[in-house]
């Protein structure tokens, strides 16, 4: 079958010593590499090598986890890092295993494919001389006396003809042989088993290549979008961006996308889960360069496709709109600021930087509570994620915010070491507390801060919609997907054929028996796992033996 020589169905190899000379050694190693045992060991090794990546955080899937790991284990982490344990699936050793495995696979599949193509075109093999030694051997001596005198060879030939028809109707490929006066039919079926096996292994290669190749052209990026604020799809407006190896900025299709509304449903009836979100809906519109407009509601599990990019809903939170007037009455800051959620009830932390404020730059650290509640300690916390009782608290700092030094600083952090606290904390001035629509004066004539409401006309205690929401999105483009999917499905179909289509040979032989009638012999041979072979031969004997008797 041109299977690896250590396949259990292959004849045991006679020589295992390498032939002399370079070619001999190369051939020897190639044979070792493409043997079943090597494939098996590499498979087991692959399973083992995949384990550490589940024990140690991976840069690819959990970059923050890696940072935390370094903090928590400063001695161990660099050592693990040098072994590439934070990048297991891109590591030299993991790659080596799967590349060897796939080389072995290619080396295994190619000879089998050529062999199989030949087998597909060849006739079923000559009937063995002795069927007794084969599986399911059955003898029938049908009573043909009723047929009259025309016994012997004629009857044998016609019995074999009917056996051939029977086998052919059961999708066997058939061939008649006549050896030493015995008529016989040799039949084989289940070529699909080997075809399926080859398709399966080749498709695995296809999956790997699609992922590798497609991944190089893929990109993904993250963007926080606040209700009403348009996002222009160019590289510079992403918050973060991960290009594949062959990514080129020209691959980005320019378009403008706007989050029109973000809505959340909360559980209201089930007290075991009161206030748990049950649905997130991001209504977006998008417009491309040609002016084609498209709108959609993005939900978890329901991405939106536009301009070759798929947009996934990832997270959400509140973006209070804040206006800062400086000591000279100028507007130094006026923007919706995304506050990062700290817990499931969206207690959120946000930073406000007003470097243009005069006479001094202003920085603020704010906490936003969509539904403010008071802990036993006296501190605020949010007790519901919806806007039932919104509250913003602010601590205010003055001093050099460091924005002019040219060093990029995250908009989500404020380094207060060099700043002077003027409101909250130890400053002696109480932390500012604002409801939507309220304004507070800063001390020392520094100005004022306003928490703008989005629903100025709403009645008292109706806070719905008073604070903008934001949603964070992942934008993806991966040309590998379709290819990987097609190959994966091919692999599955190949696997089904390979495991469940029985490949078997069946022979029926007819001899004139000494008593004047005929003696029919049936036997089969499994090629690969075939638990139903004996049954199948017996069934053919029953059906055919019965037929002949008629």
């Amino acid at each position, binding site marked *: 079958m041109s299977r690896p020589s*250590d*396949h*259990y*169905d292959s004849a045991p190899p006679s020589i295992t010593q390498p032939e002399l000379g370079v070619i001999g050694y190369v051939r020897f190693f190639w044979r070792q590499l493409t043997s*079943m*045992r090597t*494939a*098996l060991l590499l*498979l*087991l090794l*692959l*399973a083992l090598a*995949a*384990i550490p990546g*589940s024990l140690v955080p991976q840069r*690819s*899937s*959990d970059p923050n*986890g890696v940072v935390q790991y370094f903090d928590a284990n400063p001695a161990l982490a660099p050592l693990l890092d040098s072994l590439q344990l934070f990048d297991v*699936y891109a590591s030299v050793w993991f790659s080596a295993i799967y590349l060897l495995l796939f080389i072995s696979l290619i080396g295994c599949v190619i000879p089998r494919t050529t062999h199989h193509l030949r087998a597909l075109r060849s006739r079923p093999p000559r009937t063995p001389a002795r069927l*007794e*030694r*084969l*599986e*399911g*051997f*059955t003898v029938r001596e049908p009573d043909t006396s009723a047929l009259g005198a025309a016994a012997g060879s004629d009857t044998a030939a016609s019995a074999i003809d009917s056996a051939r028809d029977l086998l052919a109707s059961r999708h066997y490929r058939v061939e008649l042989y006549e050896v030493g006066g015995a008529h016989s039919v040799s039949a084989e079926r289940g070529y699909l088993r080997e075809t399926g096996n080859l398709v399966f292994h080749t498709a695995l290669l296809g999956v790997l290549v699609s*992922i590798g190749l497609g991944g190089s052209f893929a990109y993904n990026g993250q963007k926080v979008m606040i209700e009403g604020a348009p996002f222009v799809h160019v590289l510079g407006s992403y918050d973060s961006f991960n290009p594949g190896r062959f990514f080129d900025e020209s691959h980005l299709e320019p378009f403008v996308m706007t989050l029109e509304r973000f809505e959340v449903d909360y*559980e209201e009836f*089930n007290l*075991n*889960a009161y206030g*748990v*979100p*049950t*649905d*997130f809906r991001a209504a977006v519109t998008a417009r491309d360069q040609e002016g084609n407009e498209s709108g959609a509601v993005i939900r*978890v*599990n*329901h*991405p939106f496709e536009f301009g070759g990019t*798929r947009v*996934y809903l990832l997270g959400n939170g509140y973006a209070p709109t804040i206006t800062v007037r400086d000591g000279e009455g100028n507007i130094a800051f006026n923007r919706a600021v995304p506050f990062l959620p700290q817990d499931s009830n969206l207690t959120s932390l946000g930073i406000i930087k007003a470097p243009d404020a005069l006479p001094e730059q202003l920085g603020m650290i704010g906490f936003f509570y969509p539904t403010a509640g008071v802990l036993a300690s006296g501190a605020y916390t949010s007790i519901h994620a919806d806007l039932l009782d919104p509250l913003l608290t602010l601590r205010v700092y003055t001093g050099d915010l460091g924005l002019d030094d040219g060093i990029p600083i995250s908009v989500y952090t404020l380094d207060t070491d060099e700043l002077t606290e003027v409101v909250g904390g130890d400053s002696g001035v109480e932390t500012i507390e604002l409801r939507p629509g309220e304004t507070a004066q800063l001390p020392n004539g520094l100005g004022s801060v306003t928490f703008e409401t989005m629903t100025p006309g709403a009645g008292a205690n109706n806070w719905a919609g008073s604070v903008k929401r934001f949603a964070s999105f*992942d934008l*993806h483009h*991966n040309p590998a*997907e379709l290819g*990987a*999917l097609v190959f994966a*499905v091919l692999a*599955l179909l190949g*696997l*089904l054929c390979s*495991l*469940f289509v029985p490949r078997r040979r069946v022979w029926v032989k007819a001899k004139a028996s000494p008593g004047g009638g005929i003696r029919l012999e049936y036997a089969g041979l499994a090629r690969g*796992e075939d*638990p139903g072979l*004996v049954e199948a*031969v*017996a069934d053919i004997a029953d059906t055919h033996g019965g037929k002949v008797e008629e």
Partner: protein
Amino acid sequence: MTEQLASAALVAIYSAMAVYSIALVFFAIDIAKRSSLKASPVQSELLGQADGFRGSIAVAKRAAPVAQAKASRFERTGFALTILAWLLHLAGAVLRGLANGYVPWSNMFEFSLVVSLALTTVFLGIQFWQKLGYLGVYATGASLIVLGVGTVNFYVDVTPLAVPLQSVWIIIHVGVAILATAFFAIGAGLSILQLLKARYEANPDASRLGFLRTIPSSVSLESLAYRMVVVGFVLWTFTLIAGAIWAERAWGRFWGWDTKEVWTFIIWVIYAGYIHARATRGWRGAPSAWLSIVGIAAVVFNYTIVNLFFKGLHAYSGL
């Protein structure tokens, strides 16, 4: 209404556990009785021929599938009780599903509930095809443990389906994974028996497990185990692909080496290894059986340790 349905589900589940326990006792008595049975020579001869090794004569082999000894009274009672337990178990799962308003496999308690149900379903289902009474202790014992641990240690109240799980893929991907697990588990049980039987065959007099005489040969058991595992493997392959499609829908990438993805992959590779081992000279028999056992161990590890202690996107243990 939800509350009533959920507590009715619990009543059914605890009843199922009680009946499983009694079924287990009956199967165990049957096994104990087998040990004291004198093997009739005819029976062992027929069993020997059920193996289908090449070159034996067909006339006797034809009779092979029914060649096992007639089930004992205890075994038959064990089966009857298992069917009763299964009905209660099924009722428990259906009631829980109704209480949820969605499929009853969205947290660890429910996984245990449905995996053990699938295990019994597969065990009972294959009886139509092969009589596996000698596996009764293993099957009812495994169901009982999984269901018991899940219900006692992981029980959670009905809550709305977490937003990320609101997708048809939870039905397809998780449902098929559960079914695959059931086939792997039955396969592993057969592999364990295969190992015991192989040791018995090597030295029949040294074995104190007399019942081994009454079960099929190690070669037959291996072939049965193999057939269970390949069905499980196909289902697992499907789970893997369906999971990738869902991950693409939900997270925008079909594969990201998230912890759960890693373990799904590891399990898949182990079973691919098992199938290969069965086709590799020197690896058929005991070494391949060990791989089947390692495989189910990895599946159990994936359901328990990985769910409880490993960090990842698939954080839906409900605990």
